[in-house]
C-alpha cells in the first residue's frame, strides 16, 4: 500500500512536469487576477472604510452593504456578472473578485480607525491638526496593521475564489480543476488545487512579511539583521506581482509573435465537447495558418452561446436540439433535419452566426439505468418505469432538469415524475448510477461510460426526446475573413458516427486519457492530419 501511494505521487509529478509551461502560465494568470482584484478592492474599500468611520450615518449601511454582497454564492456572482457585463473572461471575474475582497478591507479599515485610542486623537486635535491631518498623520498610520490584516484576508481568500473564475473563461489555476472535474481526472484536479493552495500560503506569508517590514526599526535594533531585512520584506509583494506579470504575459508575448491570426475555440464542460473542441482545433492548426486559442470548459450552453454571440470566441460545437430549445426557446420538434434548417436560418438572422455541416453523429439524452436492474425489473422503455417512479431517485445534469425539452417535457409526455431529482455534474452522474446512489440518469447517447459502466439506455417509446446533430457554429464575420475554415472542418463530416464518437468519449472517460491525445490519435489514424 505504501509503495502504491509513492507510485501515485511520482506519476503525478511526471504528469505535472509535462505541463510545466501551462502551469506557469496559469499560475501567472491566477496571480494577476488575484492581484488586480485585491488592488482594486483596496482602491475602493479604503476610501469607503474611511468615509464610513467618519460619517456616522454611513457606517451601518456601508458595513451591511458589503456584508450582504459577501453572502452571494461565488458561482452565482460570476453568473450574474457574466449577464451584466455580457462578456466572458477576465473582466467579469475581476469585478466579482473585487466585490468579494471589499468586505474584509472595508471592515478592517473601519475597525482600525475606530480602534485608535481616543486620547491620541484628542492630542492630534488639541495641537491643531485639521480633520484631514488627523486622519492622514495619526489615525490611518495607527490603523494600518489592522487594515493590512484585512488586505491579507482578502488576498488569501481571493486566491481561493479565483479558482472559480476559470468557469467563465478567465483562466487561472481553476482551469486545471475545471477540466479535471469535467474529465473526472484527479491528476488534473490536483494540478490546479495543489499550486492554488501553495499560492494562498505564499501570498499570506508575503503580506505578513511586508506588514512586519513596515514596523519601523527601534533604536536598540538599529544595527541588527532585522533592520537590514525590513526593506527586503517590504518589497516582497511587488516581487510577487512582477512574477505574476512575467509568468502571464511572458508566454503571451511568444503567442503574439506567431504569424497570422488567431481563432478562439470554445467548448462546454463535458468530455464530448472537449474532444470535439480538440478535433476542430487540431484540424485548423494542421491545415490553416491560424493559431488556435483554446477557451475550453466554459460551463453550460448559454455561456458558450453568449460568448460566441458577443464575439468573445469564434467557434464551438453545438447540438441542433439545444440550439432550438435552449437558445431560440422554440418548442420541441422531432424531425432532426427540420431542426437543423430552423436553427441555421434563425441563428443567421438573430445572431449573425453560421451552422456548418453536422459532424454526422447524433447525440441525445437517454434515460439510463443499470443493466442488471433493467434485466431484473424487465425495464426496456421509459414507460416501464411508470409503476415504480415514485420510489426512484433520479440524477440529472442541471441543464436536463431545467430545459424545456428535458425533465419537464418528460413529465408531460409520460405523465409521471421521480420521487427525488438531484442535479449532478455530468461526470459524477455516471458514477452515481453505477454505485447505486441514484437509479436513473440523463445520459448522453454517445457517452462512452454507457458501455463502460454496464448501463442500459431505455427506449423513448413516446418519442419526446428529439435526436440532435452536433455541428460547428461559427461567427459569420470570422467565416467571411477565413473561408478556408469551412472546408477544413467539413473533412471531419462523416468521420464521426455514433459509434466512433462513443469510442472517443470512452477513451477519455474510462481510460483516463486526455482529450487532446485522443483527438490526435484519431485524426492520425484517419489520415486527416495529412495535407492533400
Amino acid at each position, binding site marked *: 500500500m505504501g509503495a502504491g501511494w509513492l507510485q501515485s505521487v511520482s506519476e503525478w509529478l511526471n504528469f505535472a512536469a509535462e505541463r510545466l509551461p501551462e502551469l506557469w502560465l496559469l499560475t501567472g494568470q491566477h496571480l494577476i487576477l488575484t492581484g488586480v482584484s485585491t488592488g482594486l478592492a483596496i482602491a475602493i474599500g479604503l476610501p469607503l472604510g474611511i468615509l464610513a468611520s467618519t460619517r456616522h450615518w454611513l457606517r451601518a449601511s456601508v458595513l451591511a452593504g458589503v456584508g450582504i454582497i459577501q453572502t452571494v454564492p461565488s458561482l452565482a456572482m460570476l453568473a450574474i456578472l457574466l449577464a451584466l457585463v455580457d462578456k466572458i473572461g477576465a473582466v467579469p471575474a475581476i469585478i466579482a473578485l473585487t466585490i468579494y475582497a471589499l468586505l474584509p478591507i472595508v471592515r478592517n479599515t473601519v475597525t482600525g480607525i475606530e480602534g485608535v485610542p481616543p486620547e*491620541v486623537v*484628542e492630542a492630534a*486635535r488639541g*495641537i*491643531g491638526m485639521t480633520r484631514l491631518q488627523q486622519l492622514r*498623520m*495619526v489615525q490611518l498610520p495607527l490603523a494600518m496593521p489592522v487594515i493590512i490584516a484585512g488586505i491579507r484576508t482578502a488576498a488569501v481568500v481571493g486566491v481561493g475564489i479565483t479558482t472559480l473564475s476559470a468557469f467563465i473563461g478567465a483562466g487561472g489555476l481553476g482551469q486545471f480543476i475545471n477540466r479535471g472535474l469535467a474529465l473526472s481526472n484527479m491528476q488534473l484536479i490536483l494540478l490546479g488545487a495543489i499550486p492554488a493552495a501553495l499560492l494562498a500560503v505564499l501570498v499570506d506569508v508575503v503580506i505578513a512579511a511586508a506588514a512586519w517590514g513596515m514596523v*519601523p526599526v*527601534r*533604536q536598540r535594533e538599529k544595527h541588527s539583521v532585522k533592520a537590514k531585512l525590513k526593506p527586503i520584506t517590504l518589497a516582497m509583494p511587488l516581487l510577487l506581482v512582477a512574477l505574476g506579470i512575467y509568468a502571464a504575459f511572458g508566454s503571451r508575448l511568444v503567442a503574439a509573435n506567431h504569424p497570422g491570426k488567431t481563432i478562439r475555440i470554445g467548448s462546454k464542460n463535458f468530455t464530448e465537447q472537449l474532444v470535439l473542441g480538440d478535433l476542430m482545433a487540431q484540424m485548423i492548426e494542421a491545415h490553416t495558418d491560424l493559431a488556435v486559442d483554446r477557451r475550453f470548459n466554459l460551463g453550460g450552453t448559454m455561456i458558450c452561446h453568449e460568448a460566441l454571440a458577443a464575439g468573445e470566441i469564434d467557434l464551438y460545437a453545438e447540438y441542433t436540439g439545444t440550439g432550438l430549445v435552449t437558445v431560440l426557446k422554440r418548442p420541441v420538434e422531432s424531425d432532426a433535419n427540420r431542426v437543423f434548417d430552423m436553427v441555421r436560418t434563425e441563428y443567421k438572422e438573430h445572431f449573425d452566426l453560421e451552422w456548418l455541416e453536422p459532424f454526422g453523429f447524433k447525440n441525445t439524452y437517454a434515460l439510463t439505468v443499470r443493466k442488471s436492474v433493467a434485466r431484473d425489473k424487465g425495464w426496456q422503455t421509459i414507460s416501464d418505469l411508470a409503476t415504480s417512479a415514485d420510489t426512484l431517485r433520479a440524477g440529472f445534469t442541471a441543464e436536463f432538469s431545467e430545459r424545456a425539452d428535458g425533465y419537464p417535457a418528460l413529465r408531460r409526455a409520460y405523465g409521471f415524475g421521480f420521487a427525488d431529482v438531484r442535479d449532478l455534474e455530468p461526470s459524477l452522474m455516471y458514477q452515481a448510477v453505477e454505485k447505486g446512489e441514484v437509479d436513473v440518469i440523463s445520459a448522453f447517447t454517445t457517452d462512452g461510460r454507457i458501455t463502460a459502466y454496464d448501463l442500459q439506455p431505455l427506449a423513448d417509446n413516446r418519442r419526446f426526446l428529439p435526436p440532435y446533430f452536433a455541428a460547428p457554429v461559427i461567427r459569420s464575420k470570422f467565416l467571411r475573413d477565413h473561408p478556408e475554415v469551412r472546408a477544413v472542418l467539413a473533412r471531419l463530416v462523416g468521420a464521426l458516427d455514433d459509434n466512433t464518437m462513443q469510442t472517443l468519449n470512452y477513451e477519455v472517460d474510462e481510460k483516463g486519457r486526455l482529450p487532446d491525445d485522443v483527438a490526435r490519435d484519431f485524426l492520425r489514424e484517419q489520415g486527416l492530419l495529412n495535407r492533400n
Partner: protein
Amino acid sequence: MIVLDGVSKSFDGGQSYAVRELSLHVNDGETLVLLGSSGCGKSTTLKMINRLIEPTNGTIHVDERDVTRQDPVMLRRTIGYVFQGIGLFPHYRVIQNIEIVPRLVGWSANKRKQRVREVMELVGLPPDEFSDRFPDELSGGQQQRIGVARALAADPKYLLMDEPFGALDAITRDSLQQELKSLSKRLRKTTVFVTHDIFEALTLADRIAVMHDGRLQQVDTPQKVLTDPATPFVRELFEKPARQLAAFQGAD
C-alpha cells in the same frame, strides 16, 4: 492675557452644568493653577480655552480676541498643550513628535531641527540619545518631558497643561515639578495648569483658582488661599492634608 467671562458649560442641554458662571483672568507670564477634585469642571474649563470644547454661555478672550471668532485649528497651533496621560503619537519618533506643530505651521526643516534640539535640552533630554526613539522606548517621566517639549516647540505665548504629571510616580513627579517651576520662571509663558494635587498646586502656582462643583471658589496667591480661605470648601480643602500630615508626624 486670557479672560473668561461668565463661562458656563452644559453637556445635557441645560439640565446640569459642568462649569457655571465662571469669570477669571490669567495675566501675561503667570502660571494659574486650576485646582479641584475630579469632576469639578477644571479640565472642561481648560479645554474651552482652545476650543476642544465649546462653551454654552459666556465669552473667552485670548490676547483680547474672542476665541469663538477664530479658526479653532489656527487657535490651537498658537497655544501649547500638554495632555493628561501621555498624548504622544506612538508611531512617531521623539523628533517627529516634538516638531509636529512647527511642521503644521510650515517651518523649514533646518529651523525645525534646530528648535527640536533646543527644547530637548530645555527639558533635559540629550537629543543625540533620544531623538530617534519611539515613545515606547522611553520611561513615563521621559515621555512627559517630551510632551512638554512638544508643547514648547513652536514657542507659543500660552501653555495649557491638563494634569500632565498625574500618572507618574511620586519621585518622578516631584523632580518634574521642580524643573517645570524653574523652566516657567525662565520662559514666563502664560500658563494654565490643571491638577487635583494640592502640593503640586502650591509648588507651581503664581495664583491658584479653586473650583468645586463647576463653580469658582477663590482665586488668589497660594499664601492667601492658605491663610485666608474665601469659602468653607477652600478651608476644608487645605486643612485636611495639613491635619493628615500633622497626624502622621505625631504618630512617628
